[in-house]
């Protein structure tokens, strides 16, 4: 296998294959699905109250308000910028803190703090922001809270919001359409146009061609998984580990795509095959959607080992020790699939050459 030839073939596939419908769908569809799901179940358009601050001095109030989880804080360089941000709805409310605000607040002098409120801001956000500003001023002034608040969360502690439950589905969709469908359709396309046979009489080997297609699937699946995780603010803190796991998942998906591409004859058969085995590919996501289903059922399906480590790291803050079992099986599946690819390549060679 020649690395240079694989790189040339990969470049060619990106140049011409990227105009293909499936390639475009591999990019557009996961993003659109994620957007729609977020619209319906919502984390993307977060409704956390937003406060804009123009600090003309160096007030500690900015840090105190920023430390609160109930408010998103943005700072603006000038009062004009602040007013404009409120007018367009970038923030719900904007306050301009005058120079020496902290000293005046501590001295007990009466201060009127002008604030801009966005007309479309929700009543609850206005209330939360006013209370948060007041709370920060009281902290600044050293007032003692007159009440002790004990909080308790009631109900099933394992309850997961729907936006989190649906993330594995979007993620798996991005991996399978980019990692599996794109390489498979590229191989089938070459078969149908008989360019595979033409390539076979050049020094390029079938291994070079399949490696290029597989690499394209890996790159696409990896990039789209990262995009989906970023869009859903679910990247977690274990970035390195997450990238390794995403990479392994993309490799397994791409190998499966190569096998499909090598075995099926035309694009219609490819779509029919994907439709037929779709339920097996996506079965594990039902376990995430409906926690009432016994979790062991997910373990039966190979795609579970692509998705579970990602979910564990990104949504549950898992570490290497939490995913070592699943990653070992994923690595085993990759080795197994490499053997199947080798057999499929041999069969393809007999057919095409």
């Amino acid at each position, binding site marked *: 296998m020649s690395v240079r030839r694989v790189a040339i073939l990969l470049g060619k596939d990106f140049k011409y294959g*990227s105009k*293909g*419908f499936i390639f475009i769908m591999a990019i557009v569809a996961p993003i659109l699905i994620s957007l729609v799901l977020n619209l319906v179940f919502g984390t993307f*358009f977060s409704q956390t109250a937003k406060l804009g601050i123009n600090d003309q001095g160096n007030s500690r109030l900015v840090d105190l308000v920023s430390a609160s989880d109930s408010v998103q804080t943005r700072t603006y360089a000038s009062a004009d910028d602040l007013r404009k941000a409120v007018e367009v*709805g*970038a923030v719900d409310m904007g306050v301009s803190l005058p120079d020496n605000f902290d000293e005046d607040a501590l001295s007990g002098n009466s201060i009127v703090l002008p604030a801009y409120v966005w*007309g479309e801001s929700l*009543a609850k956000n206005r209330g939360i922001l006013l209370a948060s500003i007041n709370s920060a001023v009281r902290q600044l002034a050293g007032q003692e809270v007159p*009440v002790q608040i004990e909080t308790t969360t009631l109900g099933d502690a394992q309850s997961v919001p729907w936006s989190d439950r649906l993330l594995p589905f979007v993620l798996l969709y991005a991996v399978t359409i980019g990692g599996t469908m794109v390489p498979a359709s590229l191989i089938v396309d070459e078969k149908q146009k008989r360019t595979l046979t033409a390539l076979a009489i050049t020094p390029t080997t079938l291994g070079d061609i399949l490696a290029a297609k597989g690499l394209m699937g890996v790159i696409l699946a990896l990039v789209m998984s990262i995009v989906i995780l970023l869009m859903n603010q679910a990247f977690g803190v274990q970035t390195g580990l997450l990238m390794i796991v995403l990479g392994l998942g993309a490799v397994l998906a791409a190998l499966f795509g190569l096998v499909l591409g090598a075995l099926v004859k035309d694009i219609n058969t490819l779509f029919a095959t994907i439709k037929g085995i779709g339920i097996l590919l996506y079965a594990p996501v039902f376990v995430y959607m409906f926690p009432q289903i016994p979790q062991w059922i997910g373990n039966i399906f190979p795609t579970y080992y692509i998705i579970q480590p990602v979910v564990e790291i990104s949504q549950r803050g898992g570490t290497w020790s939490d995913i070592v079992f699943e990653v070992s099986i994923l690595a085993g599946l990759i080795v197994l699939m490499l053997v199947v690819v080798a057999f499929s390549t041999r069969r393809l060679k007999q057919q095409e050459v």
Partner: protein
Amino acid sequence: MNWQIVRALIAKDFKLYFRNRFFAFITVLALVAYIVIYFVMPQTVDETLEMAVYAPVLPPILEQAGSQGLELVLMESEEQLKEAVVGGEYLAGVVVPPDFMDKLMSGDKGQLDVYFGTDTPEELQDSITVLLEEMAYLQTGQMLSVRVSPEVLGRDMVGIQIPMRDRLLPMLAVIILMMEMLGLASLISSEVVGRTVQALLITPMTIRGLFAAKLIMGTSLAFIQVLLFMAVTGGLNQQPLIIIVALLLGAIMVTGIGFLVASGSKEMTTVMAWGFPALIVLSVPAFGVLAPGTVSDWVRAVPSYYLVDAVYQAANFNAGWSDIWDNLLILLSFDIVFVWLGITVLGRKLR
């Protein structure tokens, strides 16, 4: 220009369009999907934080909770409160002990037990805590020397907020129009590649007649669908004439863009390759409506901004002709530019 020939060409184009199963399927499916998405989304906006309260002795400050954006519902027992929170009826429940006021008045710390449901977001839990603390300060008479003086910018929408699904309407309208642009571009490019257009031009059909037919066909296909969508979703309830004019201008604009896309395409996949970036760019202004403040002033350079803004203002704020005539005028200018550009570029390819 022979209008009889133009009419015959339009009829033929409609038949050809719906013969392409992909676009025919996508057209119907998309329209139904958009309508379903609209109706699945909540039709109201939760303006207040709804909380359950069990208080044998109700502190006077809690009666003013409405001004803080809280809506309190009194419960008869702590058990009833817990059940309501677990059942998801309220975001939180507050239990105020009978001696709460006595403790505050005597200068001791009072205690509040707050129960949250598992679905209550963390930022809201924090917000509720901050609001309760602030009410306790006020109850004990600890006033602040700092007073925030709010000035509302723009129309004050408290109590008449626009639901997310109505903010979504302009975006869906743009997507419907653009999908039709893809269909039209695919149809034209297949005719160019199949050389049927060139064949048509050696008949009495003139190039002006050809473009007139394509323009009418493309515009009406896009316009009828988007009009149907707006009518079903109630988007025409306010200022229908303005919205219809805006949508018609939008339909003409995407038809012009369709000509441009067709001039650079050979078949469906290249139509997609050119069309999707155009679709994404034209959708950007609608994001500004969905998530205000996320796009900056440069969005005014995107032609669809004037369509999105006109539809949004008219459908949701009952804006009249005097409010949005400038949007419509700019949209008309873009129509002229895109149709002229499209006809020129595609015309060169045909000659």
